[in-house]
């Protein structure tokens, strides 16, 4: 689904050129749940922008769905640490925002408003927000806003979901709740996910593969397959094998931060 061939990306900033990524290669299969972990500032967000086509590589090639990325990919949903819901729209209208933009839907939305509404309400139901559809974002907790943000990123049924530290601002309990929400959404809808996180437990619980990045200029220095069977219950977090995985990832990160 995603392929990066020897990609280098340099930003031209005020303080000269900053190489965020150098000779990075990465492959993520269709329907795979990939996690990217690494020290802060190593180019994880840059990687996300490259894959979605928001920026173009300085060198190398990015492919999504078999075609080279030359502009915004249009099959991706994105969510970030900040939910960024529009305060003048109700939760339902926020979730339906992508439908007003993405190609086949924007033309149909006027005629098939009710069908789309039902679809949005169903999706809100999956994340436990059905009763909050008519509320406004500022009436909801951070965790609820992030659930709505996830729904917004999935309403147009994208093949690719890009998540950039989506749960980083939440408390530990809410975060675990949302891991379960995301796990269930993914198992139900079967999209491909790239999840950037610095929570190693989050990566271990959710992902099929974990890619570890080095400090800037970023590179993938290690790729781990996570073997725990699906569906994974939260109890897997207390499995000794899980603790070992987190521990060895932790050491790896400490090592690349030194370097």
């Amino acid at each position: 689904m995603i392929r990066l061939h020897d990609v280098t990306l340099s930003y031209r900033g005020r303080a000269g050129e900053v190489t965020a990524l150098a000779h990075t290669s990465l492959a993520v299969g269709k329907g795979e749940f990939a996690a990217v972990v690494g020290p802060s500032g190593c180019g994880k967000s840059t990687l996300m922008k490259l894959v979605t086509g928001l920026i173009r590589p300085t060198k190398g090639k990015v492919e999504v769905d078999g075609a080279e990325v030359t502009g915004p990919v249009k099959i991706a949903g994105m969510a970030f640490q900040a939910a960024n819901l529009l305060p003048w729209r109700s939760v339902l209208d926020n979730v339906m925002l992508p439908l007003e933009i993405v190609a086949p839907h924007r033309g149909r939305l006027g005629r098939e408003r009710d069908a789309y509404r039902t679809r949005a309400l169903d999706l809100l139901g999956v994340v436990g927000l059905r009763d909050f559809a008519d509320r406004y974002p500022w009436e909801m907790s951070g965790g609820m806003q992030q659930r709505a943000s996830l729904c917004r990123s999935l309403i147009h049924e994208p093949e690719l979901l890009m998540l950039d530290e989506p749960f980083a601002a939440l408390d530990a309990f809410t975060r675990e709740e949302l891991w379960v929400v995301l796990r269930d959404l993914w198992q139900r809808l079967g999209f491909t996910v790239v999840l950037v996180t610095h929570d190693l437990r989050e990566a271990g619980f959710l992902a099929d593969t974990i890619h570890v990045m080095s400090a800037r200029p970023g590179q993938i220095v290690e790729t781990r397959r996570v073997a725990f069977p699906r569906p994974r219950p939260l109890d897997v977090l207390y499995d000794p094998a899980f603790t070992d995985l987190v521990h060895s990832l932790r050491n790896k990160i400490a090592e690349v931060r030194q370097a």
Partner: protein
Amino acid sequence: MKIAAEDITPVAFTVALFVLWEAACLLFRIDSFILPAPSQIFAAMVQYWGPLLRNSFVTLWTTAAGFLLAVAFGIGLGVVVGWSRAIYRGLYPVMIGFNSIPKVAVVPILIMWFGIGEIPAILTAFLISFFPIVVNVATGLATTEPELEDVLRALGASKLDIMRKVGIPRTGPYLFGALKVAITLAFVGAVVSETIGANAGLGHLMVQAGSNFQMPLVFAGLMALAIEGILMYAVFAVMEKRMVSWAFRSSMSAAG
């Protein structure tokens, strides 16, 4: 309808101020030529209600005309400036520089160009009030969260889509904040221009009354200005509350 203490206090304070003023004038025997007592001012307002009303309308219309020009121009230029962060960063200092020129200094030039009359007043009102609108609209657009823009661009949104769905609605609180300031400024501009060179308007009336030593009438004009100014501000404050109520309740209370 229940009336809360908060609603009464401004009225009570105003009344108390007039009472104090009246008492001071009586007590210290202040010459009505220096400071007329409120009773004399109200008497002048009753006596001259015709000219006061006529000139109030002139000032109202020049203010409104200048203000509407400023809104149209200000929003247009604001959208251009706020369109991209690069334009915004380049033009913002230039605009602030322009805005620091005292517009009053331009009035004599306008009078020389357009002659004594309503046009200099309208243009002064326009000049003085349109910068806050440009700056606020541009700021509202240029400060759209970059991540939200990324979300939409990754869906294939054009710049125009992003402006329509996010930029322009989120400018609302900035715009209304600016309109409240701008209407007050336009009013100041119109009146200043009228006092320098005009043949109608409250500013003109006050200058005339002053040169005829009719102090109570000067103050009556001042009173009419105060009433007009408060009414105009109130209209926009109410409109703002109605139209962008979300901004008062969400954390994004941005206007300023």
